[in-house]
């Protein structure tokens, strides 16, 4: 509450500058979220089971919305349009339609079984399941740091994305108070408010509050995506006119895939959505389900929900590419505050946006576009941006959606609502990740290293709350420290890591012959293979020896590196399991319902 109060005071004291309409809408959204989160705590039963898994009482609609909200980050709105700006409509097939097929398959094949196992043996975390399945303490201590290490960068990406979303929206609002950010709400304050609001509701209500808040946030970002799409298409003269501009521009290739996405790359993306099978925060949401039947709506509606969010965003990104290529839309660059526009020379000769870098053609002379110098402020109080020729500049594709809204709609109410939608998508993942890490530290470390009988149920809730506060504080500090580094590159690596561990969970519930040694070898080989490619991409960069960057994406032999990590994981698991002695049937049979059910 303190965060919101301090922001309200800041707003009240703000000197006259750019209108604060958009910011007020965002503040209103945050307040609503806190009220909803607070209301959900009235249903909190005070037990650790309620705090960790909502007493396994969540119904079909809440499960669908919380699972969808958790899997869709801010990337669903901002990243999808940005990727479409760079790579065209193929991005939908690459990421969205694969996810529609694979996510639901994982929910059905893995989620329901893990829910049943979790309910039968009263599990709260993945690590508890793996420890029992392989009758091994050590597998838990091996997996715990890996899962935490993969969740934390994913979490940081969310906080940093929220901070960066607020900067351009609020630029010019507080010119004296926040002079260093050109009058924008500084990242430290945005991060503090976002973390503070999420902490407020998960601290008191645990995963139940996260599920309620996720439902509200999912509704908000789905509606805002569709509304934004309608208003942008209307401003472009309708759907047909908007797409025709792209076809007539040098970015016409964005309406297909040739030259923008390779076929092996496209196919290899099918492995990435398998990551949902190993997300610890999704595991926890699965455990909240009231019954197995609760999953039915999630399994069926998930692909449709993905289409509802992604199709409009991909179209907006493609339209932005067309508008930019036609010289109608200025785009931000890596230089803060700089906007660039494609020159008539570029438009005549054509250019590539596949690297996010506008490549000047040989002999293509830059042509200055006519623009007024920045003098004072315009009628909105914002200093005018002077677009410069785009040749040789690196365009920030993540600005595609924001620029389209600002340039074409220029409605502060819509900008405020869209920003609230983006924050909703980000926060609906953050809350689950915070609760999940608190749950894991409590159950997998504290309880494990002592004894469950040592703590009362209430004490367990409070231990978890303390861990949640610690995780939020650490995440906030790390995100501020890494604010100006490109942690976004880590996102796909987190997904690759989780996806490559998927064979472990799949084998654990479907292949009795999986042995403890096989599980250990699988995890260790996955980590080592992952590290080899990760170091090659992130640290060696241009000197990479295993792969190379194509169209902004690190590929190995034309496919995603997850292909090789996944393959290494599967082969190791199978070979080592077959070479080692099976676990005794009394250990294994407990996890295979078909044999023991009546």
């Amino acid at each position, binding site marked *: 509450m303190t965060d919101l109060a301090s922001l309200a005071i800041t707003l009240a004291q703000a000197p006259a500058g750019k209108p604060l309409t958009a910011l007020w809408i965002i503040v209103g959204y945050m307040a609503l979220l806190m009220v909803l989160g607070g209301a959900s705590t009235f249903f909190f039963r005070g037990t650790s089971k309620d705090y960790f898994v909502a007493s396994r009482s969540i119904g079909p609609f809440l499960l669908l919305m919380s699972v969808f909200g958790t899997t869709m980050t801010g990337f669903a709105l901002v990243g999808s349009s940005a990727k479409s700006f760079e790579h065209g409509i193929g991005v939908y097939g690459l990421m969205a339609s694969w996810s529609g097929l694979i996510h639901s398959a994982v929910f059905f094949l893995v989620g329901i079984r893990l829910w049943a196992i979790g309910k039968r043996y009263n599990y709260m975390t993945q690590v508890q399941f793996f420890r029992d399945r392989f*009758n*091994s303490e050590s597998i838990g201590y091996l997996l715990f740091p890996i899962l935490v290490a993969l969740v934390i960068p994913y979490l940081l990406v969310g906080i940093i994305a929220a901070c960066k979303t607020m900067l351009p929206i609020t630029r010019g609002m507080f010119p004296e108070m926040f002079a260093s950010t050109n009058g924008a709400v500084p990242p430290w304050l945005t991060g503090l408010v976002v973390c503070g609001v999420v902490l407020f509701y998960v601290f008191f209500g645990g995963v139940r509050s996260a599920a309620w808040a996720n439902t509200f946030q999912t509704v908000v970002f789905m509606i805002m995506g569709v509304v934004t799409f309608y208003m942008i298409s209307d401003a472009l003269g309708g759907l047909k006119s908007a797409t025709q501009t792209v076809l007539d521009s040098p970015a016409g290739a964005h309406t297909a895939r040739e030259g923008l996405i390779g076929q092996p790359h496209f196919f290899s993306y099918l492995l990435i959505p398998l990551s949902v099978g190993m997300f610890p925060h999704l595991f926890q949401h699965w455990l909240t389900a009231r019954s197995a039947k609760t999953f039915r709506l999630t399994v069926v509606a998930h692909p449709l929900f993905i289409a509802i969010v992604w199709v409009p965003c991909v179209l907006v990104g493609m339209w932005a590419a067309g508008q930019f290529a036609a010289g109608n839309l200025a785009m931000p660059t890596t230089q803060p505050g700089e906007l660039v526009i494609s020159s008539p020379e570029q438009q005549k000769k054509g250019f590539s946006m596949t690297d996010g870098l506008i490549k000047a053609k040989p002999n293509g002379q830059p042509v200055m576009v006519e623009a007024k110098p920045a003098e004072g402020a315009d009628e909105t109080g914002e200093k005018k941006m002077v677009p410069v020729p785009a040749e040789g500049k690196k365009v920030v594709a993540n600005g595609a959606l924001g620029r389209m809204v600002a340039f074409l709609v220029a409605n502060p109410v819509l900008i405020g609502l869209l920003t609230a939608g983006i924050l909703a998508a980000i926060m609906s993942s953050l809350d689950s990740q915070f609760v999940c890490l608190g749950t894991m530290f409590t159950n997998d470390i504290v309880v494990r290293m002592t004894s469950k009988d040592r703590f009362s149920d209430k004490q367990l809730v409070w231990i978890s709350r303390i861990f949640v506060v610690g995780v939020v504080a650490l995440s906030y500090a790390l995100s501020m420290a890494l604010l100006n580094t490109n942690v976004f590159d880590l996102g796909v690596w987190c997904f690759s890591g989780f996806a490559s561990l998927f064979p472990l969970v799949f084998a654990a519930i479907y292949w009795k012959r999986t042995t403890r040694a096989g599980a250990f070898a699988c995890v260790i080989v996955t980590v080592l293979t992952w590290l080899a490619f990760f170091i090659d991409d992130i640290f060696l960069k241009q000197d990479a020896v295993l792969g190379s960057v194509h169209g902004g994406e690190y590929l190995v032999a034309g496919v995603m590196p997850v292909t090789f990590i996944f393959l290494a994981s599967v082969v190791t698991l199978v070979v080592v399991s077959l070479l080692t002695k099976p676990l005794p049937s009394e250990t294994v049979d407990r996890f295979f319902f078909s044999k023991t059910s009546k």
Partner: protein
Amino acid sequence: MPDVSDSTRVAPKVIFIVAIVMALLHQDSWFWDNRALVLGFLPIGLFYHACFSVAAGVLWACTVKFAWPDKIEAWADEFDDAPQSTPTPASADSAGDGEGGAA
């Protein structure tokens, strides 16, 4: 005429085959360089994959209708509110299963 138990045995196999076919149909190389528009605004490649998402929804609707694991509910409820049955730190990793040697 097949009885209910026959259909519950057949359905998962049919769904598995359909899912594999869908995974293959995802690779729509025939639309790779096609810039045609559907309804005058939707690139055909995007239209195809939007339809693919709807088809995925239909596939999973058929799955929950015809291949639902009915027994799992009862199995999960068998030990309702069971205490955690994890091995003790001292006994795990070394106890009883003879793990580690070559088969």
